[in-house]
Structure formats: C-alpha cells, structure tokens
C-alpha cells in the first residue's frame, strides 16, 4: 500500500497557539484540519511537510453561529456534514448546503471541514498522481519539476480550483476571517484566490482561516450545480454557483461564479450584469448563459473533456438560472409545464 512519510503532528488548543507553531516551524510546516485531501497527497509526495499543525482540537473553530437574517458565521473547522445539515443553512442558503453536501463521500464529509474545502489544493491529472507516476512522465512545476505538462509553453501552473463551497460563498458575498501572526483581517472570499495553480490562495502561510461570515439573507435566491461523473466521490469538473437578489420579480443583484474551470473560482460578472434590473425570462437566461460561459477556460487536466466542460458551462448556468426563475430545466420542457 502507499505509506505516509514520517512527520511530527502538533495539536494546538487555540488559534493563537496554532499560528505560533506555524511561525516556529516555518516552511516545513502545514496546517491540517480534516486531512481528507492532505494525507492522500502526502502519500503521493505532493506535500512533504515535516510538521503538521492540527486544527482539529481547536474548539473555537467549530460551529455555526448567528441568524441567517443578520448573517450566519460558520467556523472554518465545522465539518461539511454539519454545514450541509444545518437548518438555517439549508433553509436560507440552500446552495451552500448543496455544495457542502456534494463534496466527496459521507465519511469524508464527516471528517472534512468547510475551511479545508475553501482552501483545498488545486488539482490536475498530471499532478494528483504518485511520486513514481510523476517521475515516469517527468515532474511538473507544481511539484518537483519546472514545466506545466498540460500547457508546456506556459510560464504558470494551470491546476484547477476544485472547491465546491468557495464559488457559492463568493456568489453569496461571504467574507473570510484570517488570523495570523500580524493580527486578524476580514476579506471577501472573492479576494481569497489568485489565478495560479501553485500560488492559488491570497493567504499568508501563518494565517489560519477561522470563520466564514455570511451576509444577511434578504430576498436572496441561490443555487449550485456540480458537474462530475458520479453521484459521489468526485471533485467538481465544473461548478456553477448563482445568487440572485430579487425584488418583485426583477433581479436586483446577480452573481454567477464558476468553479473548476480555472485555477481559481471565476465570476462571470458581465453575464451577471445583464440580469440586473431585468426579469429572468427564458430568452434573457439563454443570452446570459452564453456570456457566462466566456470566462470558463477549462484545459485537458481533469475528468471529462475540456470542450465538453466548456459546453456544459452554458447548460449549467442556464439551468441554475432557470431553476431560480421557477422554469423547467430545459426550454424543451416548457410546454409540458405550461
């Protein structure tokens, strides 16, 4: 079987202690929360930390607080199962409950945390392989090598953002609280990501993502659709998060965020803007979907083909908007419903 490399595991009891440990051990250390992604990656030598700073024992990181109407606060250490099953999340932010509930499998959602999913490593089928496989094909720049195997002429890494929850949080306008050695800061989830497969998080090494702060829910309707081969296990190869603020049938605010089609979640801002002030009619939705697919730039480094993922971006955006507008999934079915 594949074995873990040797490492030291530290178990801080507070965020402050965790940050200090991280600073003390420098680049040899990594944070670990649920460990559902990190440990398998260590077995494949994608990560080779000498020290792991475990966040599991820090009580202050766990739990959902507050009211949806004034803004929920979700501890980053809350498991995906607890997020997916939380009554207020399900009732008011169904897209978030859906996204959390679609991550991997039930046992992994019982271990994995929402903070871990937001920060989850980018993926690429040239990179998520054993050390021996990567040696055989020639190491890539994300680990042990110096070129990108999916785009060999490229100076950067094109590994794919594979978080389900971040596109939803972004579409909802959520913020993230980061606590580091220099104090704490609250930033929009949207600004947490960088467009690079290696350096994909705008978070300092010593910073702990402690909380997700959600805005008050007010006439907000949201949806998340995930493309993957199977109903379980699989990371997204396309995620579409849509949040519409509706006012008397007209769209007041619209955010469409695409996951798993670039190294970071991408907002289809131009498409969202087309909706503002308008009624979401089938014709407008078709136009918006067309525009929304433009920022979708999948490459050949995940399951399913990239032209298909690009094509499905349009289908999924249309479908998500149609659901929020109370329309059947496909224009073909409109007559039946009518």
């Amino acid at each position, binding site marked *: *079987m*594949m*074995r873990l490399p040797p490492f030291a595991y530290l178990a801080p009891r507070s965020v402050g202690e965790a940050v200090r440990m991280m600073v003390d051990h420098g680049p040899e250390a990594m944070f670990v929360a649920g460990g559902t992604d990190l440990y398998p990656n260590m077995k494949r030598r994608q990560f080779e930390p000498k020290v792991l700073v475990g966040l599991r024992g820090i009580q202050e990181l766990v739990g959902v607080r507050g009211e949806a109407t004034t803004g929920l606060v979700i501890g980053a250490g809350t498991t995906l199962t607890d997020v997916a099953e939380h009554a207020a999340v399900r009732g008011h932010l169904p897209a978030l409950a859906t996204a959390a509930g679609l991550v991997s499998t039930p046992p992994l959602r019982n271990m994995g945390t929402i903070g871990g999913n937001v920060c989850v490593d980018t993926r690429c*089928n040239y990179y998520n392989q054993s050390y021996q*496989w990567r040696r055989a094909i020639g190491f890539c720049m994300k680990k042990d090598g110096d070129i990108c195997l999916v785009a060999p002429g490229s100076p950067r890494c094109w590994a794919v953002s594979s978080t389900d929850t971040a596109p939803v949080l972004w579409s909802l306008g959520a913020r993230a609280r980061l606590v580091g050695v220099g104090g704490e800061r609250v930033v929009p989830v949207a600004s947490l990501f960088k467009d690079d497969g290696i350096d994909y998080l705008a978070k300092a090494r010593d910073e702990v993502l402690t909380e997700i702060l959600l805005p008050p829910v007010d006439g907000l309707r949201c949806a998340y659709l995930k493309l993957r081969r199977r109903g379980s296990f699989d990371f997204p190869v396309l995620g579409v998060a849509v949040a519409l603020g509706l006012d008397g049938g007209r769209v007041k605010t619209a955010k469409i965020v695409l996951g798993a089609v670039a190294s970071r979640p991408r907002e289809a801002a131009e498409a969202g803007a087309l909706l503002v002030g308008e009624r979401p009619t089938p014709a407008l939705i078709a136009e918006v979907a067309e525009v929304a697919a433009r920022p979708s730039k999948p490459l050949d480094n995940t399951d399913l083909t990239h032209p298909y993922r690009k094509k499905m971006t349009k289908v999924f955006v249309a*479908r998500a908007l149609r659901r929020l507008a109370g329309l059947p999934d*496909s224009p073909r079915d409109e007559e039946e419903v009518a």
Partner: protein
Amino acid sequence: MSTEEFSVIGKPLARVDAWEKVVGAARYADDFFLPRMAYAKIRRSDHPHALIKRIDTTRANALPGVYVVVTGRDFPAVRFGILPVSQDEEALCTDKVRMVGDPIAAVAAVDEETAERAADLIDVEYEVLPPIMSVEEALAQDKVRIHEYGDGPNIHKAVAFEFGDVEEGFRQAALVREDVFFYQGNTHLPMEQHAAVAQWSPDGKLTLWSSTQTPHYVHRALAKTLQMPPAWIRVIAAPVGGGFGGKTDPFSHEIVVARLAQLTGRPVKIGLTREEVFYCHRGRHPVSMWVKTGVTKNGEILAMHFRSYVDGGAYGSYGVASLLYTGALQTVTYRVPRYKFEGMRAFTNKPPCGPKRGHGTPQPRYALECHLDKIAEQLGLDPAEMRRRIVVDEYTKTANHLTITTCGLRECIDRVVEASGWREKHGKLPYGKGVGFACSSYLTGAGLPIYWNDMPHSGAIVKVDRGGGVAVLCGATEIGQGSDSVLTYVVAEQLGIDPKDIRMATADSDLTPVDLGSYSSRVTLMAGHAAARAAERMRILIHEAVAKKLEVVPGELVSRGGRVFVKDDPERGVSFAEAAVLAETMHGTLACAGSYTPPKRAGKFKGSGVGPSPCYSYTACVAEVSVDPDTGEVTVDRVWIAHDVGRALNPLLVEGQVEGSVYMGLGEALMEEQVFREGLHKIPSMLEYKSPTTLETPEIYTILVETVDPEGPFGAKEAGQGPLLPVPPAVANAVYDAVGARIDEVPISPEKVARAVELKKQGKPARVGPERLPVFTFPEPVKVASAFGEAADPSVKRKTQV
C-alpha cells in the same frame, strides 16, 4: 422452483463464510504477519518501451534497513506466462521494458517505508524506444518490435475460420447489413489489491500465500521460474477480495517474494498499491469490430462474418484465448448456419490485457446485439420478438462445432419482456426515456485446460471424522463468488447433513486435490461434480455399514436431516455420527475422492479448443434509461434480467452474481475506460478511474430460469459471468430508443451522447462510433464444414435420460 426433493440445494442459505467476512475475521493475503517478516517493493519501469542499459543498486543497498536488492539477473533465465504458447514474461525484466510499470528490480527491507525508499534509490539507465500505443501504431511499426515472436511484427496472433460458405448465405439474404464498433478496454477493480507472502523453510521448501484465483497455475509458474521441484513448493490461495479475472495469471510479484524469502531467510510480504494493480491489469481488451450479417425478412440469420482487432498490451497473458473468444460464442445464442471469423491481437506498450468477467465475449456481444437492434429496426420487427424467433435449438451443434445442451433463452426473453412491460414501452416512451433489449450466452467452464493434459480439471476429497464432522478438501478458490458455500451445499445434500457440520479446506497445493482455478465460470460445475462424486462414494460406504447394522440392503437407506434411515420406515435409523463410527469400523479411515473431467467435444480443427463447454448459460436483459439530451448524461433507471442458471444451488448467491454482473456491465457501458497519455496510464487510481457507485446502480429485477441441465451438478449452470454480457448493449439500445442516437462504442459517455444528439439536431446521421478499422490482411481462413443443426453427440446426456 423444484427444490422440494432437496434439503439444502435450492435454499437461500447464508454463505458459509458470511460471518468471518462480515466481522472482518477473514484473513486475506495482506493480513498475514509472520515473525521476522520483511517487506518487499518492486521498482517499475518509467518508460513504456525501452532497453535497460544499466541497473545500479548501490544506493538502495546502502540504505539502513535494506536486507537485499535483486534484479532479473538474480533469477534463473526462464520466462513464464499463463499459456504455454505465450511464455513471454520475466520475474524482473533483464534487458527490456515493454510498459510503464514493468518490474525491473525488487527490495526486501525491514518495513514497507524503507523498501519503498530503497526502490526509489535504484538507478536505472534506459535506451528509450518508440512506444506503440494502439493497434494502428503496432501495424504501422514494422521496425520496432515489442516481442520477437508472433504472427508478424507486433502481431501476437492472427486467426481466420470459415464454417460454411458465408458468401452464399449473403447472396440468399433479404438484408445484408454491416456495422463497425469499438469496445474500450477497462479493468477489474477488485476491492483487494494483490498481496503475497512467501516463506522459505530451513529445509529448502517454499510456501506462498497469495491473493490468486489460480493457485495451481502459480504453483507451476514458481516451479518453472525458480527451477525447483514442484514437490517443494506449497501454494495457498488466501480468501480473495475480488478477482473478476484480474488474479488469474501468475504474477511477477509472486515469484519475486519467493526469491526474496530465499535470499533473506525471512518471510517476505508484498502488498501492491492500487496503481500497481492497474499495471498488473489483464483486463478487458480494447477491440475494434466489424460485423456483417445476412438475414431473411423475418430476421433469420443466414450468414455472419465477424472481424476483431484486439489491442493486447505488452504481454501474451491469456491473449490467444481472449482473441478466439471474441469469435467463439456468437453462434451459441442464435441460429447462425454459416459463420466466418477473422481476428488479430496486436502487442502494444500498455499493461497486458487478459480475462475479465466474460473473457473476450462482452466486446463482440456489444457489437452483435447493437447490430441486431439495427437489423430489427430495418426489418420493422420488434427486437425482442425477432431474437426470440432465432434462438438456438437444444441438443444441436453450432456452425463452429460447439454443442448446445439445454437453452432457457426463450423463457428468459418472455420473462423480461413481461416483467419490464417491454411491449408497452419500446418506441413508446417520451423523448429522453427509452428501453433497450439484448441477450447473451456464456460457457460453464472451459472444456479444455490451459496446459495440455488428460487429467481431471477438478478433484475433491471428503473425509468423515468419528464425531460426524466432515471435511471437504478441494483445490477450488473462494474469490467471493461463494465457491466454498456451493461445495458445502453439494456435500451436505449428498450426505444429508447440516452444512454447518462441514469444514472446507480449499486451495492449498499440499493438502487439496488440484482444481484448475476460479475462472471461466467452471467451479460450480466442475468442482461441484468432483465434490458430489466424492460425497456419493462416502455415502455408499456409510450406507453399506449402516445397512449391515440395521439388517437391510443399502438401497433401502436414505441420508437426510443428519440421519441415515430406512426410506420406508424412517424411525429405523442412526444419527450421522453413529453412522460414521459404523462406517469407520467397517472400512477403516473414511476418506473418498472424486474428480471431474469435462467431456471432449471440441471440433476437429486447430483453434477449436476455445469455446467448448459442458453447457451454456443464457441471459436476456431489458434496460430502461433516462437520457438528458442537453448534457448527454445517461441514467439507468431499471434493469430486468432473466438468467438461465440450469438450477440455482442457492438462489441468493445466484442473484448476488447476477446483480454484481449488472453493476459491472453498467460500469463498462457508461464510464469505465483504461486510457493512456504519453505512454502512461492516465488515471491509475480509484478516484479517477471512474467506476459506478451505489448511487449509479439502478433497481435490478433478477429472474432465475431453471432448465436443470444434465451436464451440471444437480442441473446447475454458471451465473458469475454470463449476466454481464447483455447489459452494455441493452443500455446502448435503450439510449437509441430514448433519443434516437446510436453510440457504437463504449463507454457511452455523456459527451458522446451529447454529440450524437447534436448531430441529430443538425440532420446528420446520429451516430458516434469508430469511423474506420485498422488495415490488416487476415490469413486465409481455415475452412471447416459447418456443423450447424447437427444433433449433439450421443455422449451428451439428455434430460429425458435423467
């Protein structure tokens, strides 16, 4: 079901190994821990095709905790392979590697981590050769050769047969149709990764525990590659955590741990990683196929011509048999009076393909059943009704000289048509919903052994203890299919005792008589017969002793309910334990052997050895699907499947086999594919090699049809492989019914369906599939008179004689 006459047979009993498997007490090969045990790791090739220029083990040897490092030079220079005609594998490659993952060197160390680190410290210098990754590339490359043997450069084998004049059949036909199909390769994906433990005793004898389906063949391979007397080698198959054909070859790692154990004087264990299991492979061959059939206006087949282009991978494995199987069973399902088959298997620089559940027959079955669906549509016939009309006749021979005994296919068709509401659904469901139909047949055990010999294929010993306990010793291998249970039921029925009073000792070359292994759906029939015969002999000894005691003749006695008693006076009798004492007193130690050799019914032509079987199972299947035309996603909602199992020795186990086959067939139909990029397996992990989960598994309605075949023990035929066969074409035909698009290749991925739907929208032919075939000239066919319609040999047992 007619089970009244039996106490055990036909009852839905729990498996005999249920408890130990449910509570985790079963000891699989990787669960073995022996004192002072070392751990092995194999260094594998980084290149798909290369010469090995130098192997330097200095750095690995210097690592603390390393006991020994070996290369191919540390083994006798002998090659091995499962078929005598394809001895092309080395324990460790000496001069050349033929795929990424080929074994080059091995380490034994104090623990697995150290062994892995040491394996990575072995320095290998290669001279890289051009990789050959497809049949087309194999044919285009005549200078670079993967092997030095075969029927041409990179052609492992090319065959051609013609049974009757097919051209004449085509001339008489009302419709002649040709189609081209491709069936992608896929792998077994057993839950258990291969593992083996070797122990070398101080007197120079070897014991190997392994997760293998064929301990007898491993035994032979070890003797050959280690140049040891077979008498000094003991091979024990541990309970196998899923085989499906993936553990049917002898493997490099089994030979390697044996040698490492010898060199270190320690027990040595190896447990493969999932990635290494993908390199062992021996799974489904990718096959391109062309089929041409001439039919009457009623759909009666007049002639069929079938061509297979088989991508074999880096080694021979079972490939010659696999290739022949792509042409062997087309004639066993429907009446085909004239038949021509041409096939070729190419070597490529990929993990070797071999036998996966259905061995070489799911690919042609896909082609044939999709092809027949198109023919039925062209003729304006209902595809189920058309097939029902052309089912083979019982107790006849096929064009290619295979003997049909019982055939329950018509009943299977009627039952699934009825249960699924086929007539109300086919062609009548709303857009996006559809039903598809397919049939199949499969062998119940290969009629010929892997290596030429006239000995039995299966043997069993039944031993009775003075306390009434019964031990059954048999070489059969429990791979999760329930062979231990089936053999227990057979013996329990014969001796009239509770299955719980029987202990199985199986798959141990020192203690158990040879059984050829758990492959070709042979165990229930062959080992079942051997155990039944051994038990019958034991019953005769027991009845003789009891008859003397009770002062009756043995013919008046029956054994049932743990007693031996007078049939017409059940009060007069003794318990089985008392009977055992009487019998041992009379006869001495109570041990009886039984064995089974299949009937010799192969045709008299070269290549006739693949296809014959004592009897064939039959299956009919209806799949109901929903297709999302925008995304191309196919959801299988329901599957109805009727299987002619001869007799279900335990209906619960048979249903389990049928459901497992459906599930595996759906994986092949919809998503599984063994694909390569830059010479490497693209996705060698359980996460990225997509196989269905419970969420993708539909409601499965299993119907068992019992024909009680005179060839099978208690009438049983196979159930482990046949039910997979009709599933992929039934799904393809259902997709056509749903959205009018033909997907002439598996997997039927959402992208292909979406593309076909798009083509239809554009008014183009709504088909996605191969556009051309490899260019290859087949040899002149061996012409053999068609045996179609001839009566089965007089040696064939008939039902009326039972």
